[in-house]
């Protein structure tokens, strides 16, 4: 721990951000009830108790995505990560968690670590995850069985890896947006936002 206090390298930053996504996605899936709560276990991370899935299929999927994401974060070729929640029956997009990633492309593997302590970064990450937890209070209840998908916005010139496919943006028709906190490792800056389908209040 003491060694990391010095600062953040590109590699470390990519790892931190990827970790954040892993925990963040798990939190969203738990908080929004996409997966049954009994398939989650508690894990302590960022000095807080987080819910991590135990569903083998989901776990496998998330590791695949996150490890690929880590690579892209390292290359600074990723622009956004979007978690899309769709209604299983109608395929209508109900919720869209968008994480905009700004990469400092000047950072190289060899370049000197940035002066930002791990503790400050984790503090920032913690508050983002806390906010994700708190969104349950205002987001509309997902009444139908839902599916989720992860979209990654990458640079145009990126070679699409095997098993990955291009996709549409899956925008919500008539949405309300709520910006959440952002955090930065000083190499990657992550802005969070959730958009949800406006309930027909008319």
């Amino acid at each position, binding site marked *: 721990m003491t060694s990391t206090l010095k600062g953040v390298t590109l590699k470390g930053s990519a790892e931190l951000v990827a970790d954040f996504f892993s925990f963040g996605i798990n939190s969203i899936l738990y908080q*929004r*009830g*996409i*997966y*049954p*709560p*009994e*398939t989650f276990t508690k894990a302590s991370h960022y000095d807080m108790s987080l819910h991590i899935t135990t*569903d083998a*299929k*989901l776990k496998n*999927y998330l590791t*695949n*995505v996150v490890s*690929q994401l880590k690579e892209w974060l390292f290359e600074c070729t990723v*622009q*956004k990560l*979007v978690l*899309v929640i*769709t209604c*299983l029956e109608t395929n209508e997009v109900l919720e869209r968690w*968008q994480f905009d990633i700004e990469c400092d492309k000047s950072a190289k593997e060899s370049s000197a670590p940035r002066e930002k302590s791990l503790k400050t970064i984790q503090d920032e990450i913690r508050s983002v995850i806390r906010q994700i937890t708190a969104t*349950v209070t205002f987001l509309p*209840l*997902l*009444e139908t*069985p*839902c*599916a*989720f*998908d*992860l*979209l*990654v*916005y*990458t*640079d*145009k010139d*990126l070679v*699409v890896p095997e*098993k*990955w*496919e*291009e*996709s*549409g*943006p899956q*925008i919500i028709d008539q949405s309300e947006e709520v910006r959440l906190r952002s955090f930065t490792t000083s190499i990657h800056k992550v802005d969070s936002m959730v958009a949800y389908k406006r309930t027909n209040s008319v």
Partner: protein
Amino acid sequence: MGCFFFGRVSPEIATTNQNNAFAPAPVATRRTQRQRFERANQRSAAWDLNRMASSARNSNFAERRGKASHSFKRGVHVFTRRRSWFVNKMAQFGFENDIHSILKLDMPITNAPMARWQRKASSSSTSAGLSGLSPGNSTNVSLSSSKTPTRTPGKGKKTPSKMGGDRFIPIRNNKQMDVANFLLTKENEPVDATNTVSAESQKVWSVTLNGYNIEDAKILHLGGKPLNAPEGYQNNLKVLYSQVTTPASLKKTRYISPTPERILDAPDLRNDFYLNLLDWSSQNVLAVALHNSVYLWNATQGDILLLMKLENEEDYICSLSWTKEGSYLAVGTSDCKVQLWDVENQKRLRSMASHTARVGSLSWNDHILSSGSRSGHIHHHDVRVANHHIATLAGHSQEVCGLRWSPDGRYLASGGNDNLVCLWPRVQEGSSGGRFGRLIRSWSEHQGAVKALAWCPWQTNILASGGGTSDRHIRIWNVNTGSCISSLDTQSQISSLVFAPNYNELVSAHGYAHNNVVIWKYPSLTKVAELNGHESRVLNLILSPDNSTVATVAGDETIRLWKSFEMDPAKKKAKERVVQSAGGVIRNSIR
């Protein structure tokens, strides 16, 4: 302005109107008729060209004004004014030219000598002059004008009420005049402008529409379908975040009779805590096992039927369970068998042997019959297939005396003499490998044998369990989280629990020390009533299919029916509508 009618209305009216415009007001009656006609035409004609609409509103307006409440004479006066205004205006516009250009609008483009936008562009000086002369100054017309002239002329007209009595002062909305003029003169001009939209604005559009720029990003996702939770899963947040209104009037306690409605004799009943000898079918038939025979008591007609008797005098019946439809009865016996009986034909359909000890508990889940035995094993039997024994659940070390499938069929709860409550998953259809089911969770909080188990019918994740003499606690579990929601010391052995949905209550049957039945309010677990009468420990408790009555069987060899949950007739009707018909799925599938 009258020219708009020329294009739209029949030519006959067009000409007369033109004449009138130049030689106003010959006969008032004729005019009003014509106006009426014009108006009718306006209403019915499809006003597809917006630019016409706004200007026509003004004329329409005037007509209505003239017709509305004024005297005949005044009406004439008004129209002369209006026409003279027209004349003035049209003269300014260069009336003839305008008619021409507008008539040409309606012609097919192919026949036209020049494209309209070209002609317009060439005569831009004229239109500039025109606009300068128009009453509403059109030089400051802009697209951003918030009012769009799309309203149909027939609607939105209002007689201005604050007008003076004898004069008509036309209110011309400046904006509308502006827009109309703009649309007339400039509408087609920006067409070529769109071609020159810069790449920059295209980018901006792309970003606003798609949330990203197509030019410099692509969206990827891992192939395959989006992930979703396993089938049958419901979002339980609904329970948390949707409020069910509990009217305060429910507090008003009903009258609960302290005496049973009916007492039935049950001679030779085995006074054994670990057996389940009573069940009430959805067909309103109460089945009770008296030593080695099963009797059926039809609660509607009151007749009694001996369904079966075991051949061997030493053997006895340990458990009974009706299928959901109430047409078949499963019977667990002391010779380790589970028998299936067709009640209608009083015929044994199957005798399934798989256990090594007496079968003291049974529970149906569609075509799966689960049986718990003294060996501690629970077996799943698929009654449709010859090889009925499809799974073994080994979680208990002692006799399984409580066994209940949740109403949604997702979980099986089992309680044993080893003081454990176990939760098992639904039987995996067609999974050949899993002959041994996995345990979801087990609770070891009870200090006594767990025979009493009940699933909450209105909250699918709630399980109630009750412990034996050394425990005496009712515990309410959330099966999803595994947490104990509440527990209550009843001071008495608990032999049976049932949720009574009519008043959201929990009913418990007790053995030592009180030998009674207690009704608790759920979820507060405050005592609503005690039903005393049994002279020995109450062994089983079962709710009638209409939820109004509980039947208890006790060691004093009586069955007592307590009608404690009768609904208001009005409320009952509302509930009945919700009751779903039980499907005869397995009727044809039992071999």
